[in-house]
Every structure is written in structure tokens, then in C-alpha cells.
């Protein structure tokens, strides 16, 4: 394989990794900071993609970005209300919203499960035109996804150091403390999920526009893929400042896509992506667990009671 072919593959992986890293950053906020596993991520990703596509097709390429983010905020708000005001457990709240969003997404796409943006003006075609005669001409996808990831990291690094950001982190880190403090956990959870889902929606919108199409399944399995990326990122840059850890999320997302691309080159069929991400999540979470169990197992073995 030629060098340019390898570079081409790496670039695709990089672009995809950066675009999807926005979802990983969303989970960084909801899962790592707020300690809520937001299972509405798949539906919200598709919602962002669908809303962004519909608005772009209607002739508003720039408006599609805030529209997709607003849709994400709305979805996060519903998930948050279900778990903070209606006594529905957080995992269940995510699943319920995810299921409901399937219908909503098809409705948004005009009762269709697929939308085509081949001739639509999007932020990507706008950027392509803008860069037409510059040395960066072919890199418009990379530039947009890189800029989006950088902006979200910058936002999180600043936001999580504000009083509201600190309150959100405390809500996830020590619920007991927050319950007996003047912070209202319902409020912090709601804000956290709204912000996180805005990024998930943005992520979906950008992926759809770069692929020039939306499919109702565009977001399926996204939460596992993003979790896998998050856990990979944590092993690289898991400690230190918020900014550093957020960069780690993007690194994790890109590494995940690179590994996946390499696996594809080794003739792994494309449909295996989701199984691979599942295995990574299992390994990353179960690994430390078994490591903790190791001394017990060793002692059992030594005592001649192995396996019991």
C-alpha cells in the first residue's frame, strides 16, 4: 500500500475521530463529571444529525449548527426532568428518551428514515469554497472538525471552573455533600445534561453534513463507541487538569478510529465496529475490576481452592 493511501486512511480516521470526539466530550461531562450514564446519547446524536440536515436542506447551512445544538439541549432537558423531577431512574430515563427519539427523528426527517444532502449547502461546502485556492484546499473537513473539538475543549475547560461547573462536578463526585449543601442537585444535573447533549447534537450534525446524508441508524451504538473512546482517552491522559483530560477524550476518540481503521485494513468486516467497541468498553471497565480481585484469586489458588 502506498504512503498516500495510508495517509488517506489516517486522515479519514482523524476526521471521523475528531467529529465523534464531541460526543466523547459530552460523555466526559455527563459520565465522568456528573456520574450519569446518559443512554439517550444514540437518539440525541441522530436528532442532531436530522435537525441539522433538515435546516441545511431548507437553505440555512450556518443555522443548522445552533439548531442541532438546541435540539440536543431539549433532549437533554427531557432526560434530566425525567430523572430529577419524576423519580425515574437515570439509566431508565435515558432509555425512555432514546426510544421516544426514534419516532421524533423520523418525524423530523419528514417521515423518512433517510435524507440526502448531495446538493445541499452545508458548513463543509461553505468551508470548501472558502479554502478553494489556498494550500489548505483539501483539508476543509479536518479544519472544521478540529475547530469544533478545540472550541468544545476550551468551553469545557472554562465552564467546569466556574461556580456552576464546580457545582456540577461536586454533584457527580459526592452526592451526599451536595444534598446537604446549598446546591440544588436537580438544577446542576439538568444544566449538565443540557450542555452535554448540545455537544452530542452538534457531533451528529457535523457527521451527517460531512457524510452528506443522514440515516435513522447514524447514532446507533454511539454511546458505546463514545464510552470506549472515553476509557481509552482516560488511560492516556486521565489525570491532571480538566483541559488536559478533555484533550485526552479527543485523543481517545482518534485512537479508537485509527485502531478500527487498521483492523479494517486487516480484512475485518466493517459491521464488526460495534462489537469491537463493546469489547473495548468491557475490557476497560472489567480490567481494573479483575486486577483488584487478583490478590483474592491468588490466595484462593494458593490455598488449593481455585475456582471455588
Amino acid at each position, binding site marked *: 500500500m502506498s504512503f498516500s493511501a495510508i495517509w488517506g486512511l489516517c486522515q479519514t480516521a482523524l476526521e471521523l475521530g475528531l467529529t465523534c470526539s464531541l460526543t466523547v466530550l459530552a460523555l466526559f461531562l455527563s459520565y465522568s463529571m456528573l456520574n450519569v450514564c446518559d443512554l439517550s446519547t444514540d437518539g440525541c446524536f441522530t436528532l442532531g444529525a436530522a435537525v441539522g440536515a433538515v435546516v441545511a436542506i431548507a437553505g440555512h447551512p450556518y443555522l443548522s449548527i445552533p439548531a442541532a445544538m438546541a435540539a440536543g439541549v431539549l433532549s437533554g432537558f427531557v432526560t434530566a426532568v425525567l430523572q430529577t423531577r419524576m423519580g425515574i431512574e437515570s439509566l431508565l430515563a435515558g432509555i425512555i428518551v432514546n426510544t421516544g427519539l426514534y419516532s421524533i427523528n423520523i418525524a423530523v426527517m419528514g417521515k423518512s428514515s433517510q435524507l440526502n444532502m448531495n446538493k445541499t449547502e452545508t458548513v463543509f461546502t461553505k468551508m470548501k469554497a472558502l479554502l478553494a485556492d489556498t494550500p489548505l484546499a483539501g483539508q476543509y473537513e479536518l479544519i472544521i472538525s478540529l475547530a469544533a473539538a478545540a472550541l468544545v475543549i476550551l468551553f469545557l475547560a472554562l465552564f467546569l*471552573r*466556574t*461556580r456552576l461547573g464546580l457545582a456540577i*462536578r*461536586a454533584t457527580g463526585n459526592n452526592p451526599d455533600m451536595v444534598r446537604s449543601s*446549598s446546591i440544588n442537585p436537580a438544577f446542576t444535573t439538568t444544566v449538565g445534561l443540557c450542555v452535554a447533549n448540545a455537544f452530542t447534537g452538534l457531533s451528529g450534525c457535523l457527521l451527517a453534513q460531512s457524510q452528506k446524508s443522514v440515516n435513522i441508524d447514524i447514532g446507533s451504538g454511539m454511546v458505546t463507541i463514545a464510552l470506549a473512546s472515553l476509557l481509552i482517552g482516560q488511560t492516556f491522559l486521565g489525570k491532571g487538569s480538566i483541559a488536559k483530560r478533555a484533550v485526552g477524550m479527543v485523543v481517545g476518540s482518534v485512537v479508537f478510529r485509527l485502531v478500527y481503521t487498521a483492523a479494517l485494513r486487516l480484512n475485518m468486516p466493517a459491521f464488526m465496529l460495534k462489537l469491537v467497541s463493546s469489547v473495548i468498553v468491557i475490557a476497560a471497565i472489567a480490567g481494573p475490576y479483575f486486577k483488584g480481585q487478583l490478590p483474592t484469586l491468588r490466595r484462593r489458588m494458593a490455598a488449593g481452592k481455585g475456582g471455588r
Partner: protein
Amino acid sequence: MLTLQNISKTFNPGTVNEKTALRGIDLHLEKGDFVTIIGANGAGKSTLFNAIAGSFLPDTGRITMDGQDITFLPEFRRAKSIGRLFQDPMRGSAPAMTIEENLALAAGGGGWLSHVSRAEKAAFRDRLALLGMGLEDRMRQPVGLLSGGQRQALTLLMATMVPPKLLLLDEHTAALDPGTAEKVLALTENIVREQKLTCLMITHNMSSALELGNRTLMMDSGRILLDLKGEQRQGLTVADLLRMFKENVGKALDNDRMLLS
């Protein structure tokens, strides 16, 4: 300053696990009162604190603070004027966040989107130095690295960062080793005196119940048995307290953490 009228609470009513934790408690605190509370296991001491802090709505009665009826005020709103420390030192601070970040949360003030200013950080440093634990040089370390005693001292600082109208201390030194417990207790006394706080302190230590503060309550079975203050309280010894308890309840005071000396 704080008035409780006929506060009752029964948990799991109508089941085999029914437990009446508070039976018509009446209590009035003056501003600046430092009240120590002693009592056997299950006497209702912590439940009393939960009622005051708003962790649950009492079955009967009213609670007023500074003339305002707070009976139905949610817990997080009361927390603005009520500081609280628990026995578990892990409960009052966020372990993954730095000392500085924990203090910033406790200090409040500023808008939701404001950052902690340099002046505030300097103020945190000065406050931390008062603890005499060297924490002022570790402000950027996660709180999870601190020892139990250090964490409880930090929690005390956090709870009194903005002087609360009322400070509730629920056996806050019981989980610490004796030396550290003494240090945290001395800090408590200093802070309460300097800020002239109104304070309720549950303690398992009979002698500090008599030494600290200006008033001692003895609780049993959800009631306040004895309310000792003024001359009646002066010169009282631990032996006197134990005798009084036995006379009132008909059995010896039994608390698994009780310190008699």
C-alpha cells in the same frame, strides 16, 4: 433565633418497622447559644438535626428561624443559613476536586458563571493556614489525598466559610483518632467563638458535652429529657449526668461510642 414547636416524626408508619424517632420536640435557641446534645443510640439526636436541616418534612409541628417559617423550605435552600458536619469525614467534601475548588464551592458568592478570583484564593490560603495542618500549601491537590482529620477540618472550614446562622455538628469528631479529634474540637470551639455562631453539637464525649457551650440537652426515645443551662449546669460532673440519666430513664446510658472521661 431557632424555634421548634411540637416536632414529631415516625418512620415507616403502619409497618412492622414503625419507629417513632421524634415525639413532640419543643426547643428554642437564643442567638449565640452553643448547645451540646447527648443521648443513647436511637434517641433521635440525628433525626432532630435532619428535621432542622430539612432532610425530611416532620409529621407535625413548625420550625422557625429568625422569625421566618422554614418548615416547608427545601433542604438546599436552608443550607444557605445552616452549616452541617457529619460523623463521616468523607461526606463533607468532594474527593476528586482540589482543596481550592472545594473551598470555592463553599464560599459561594459571585454569579454562577464567575471564576474564583485571585483575591479569593489568597483568602482561602489565609483561612487554611488557621488550621495549622499545612493545607495552605496543598491547595491544588485533590481532597481525596487528605486524611480523615484533615478532611473534617476542611469541612469545618467550608461550613463556616460564609458564617451560617446555625451550625449543626453531628458527632463530627467520633470517627477521628483521639489526638486529631481534640484538635478538630479545639478548632470548632475557636471558630464558633470568633464568628459568634449559634451551634448545636451532638457528642459522644460526656466531658466535652459539659465543658463546651452554654447549654446541654439530654435526649432519649425522641424526647428531650433534660435541658441543662445556667447555674444548674455549672459544676456538673460526668457522674452527675449519668445519674440524672438513670433517674429519668430508669436504665443506664448506653451509647456504643460513649466516652466517659
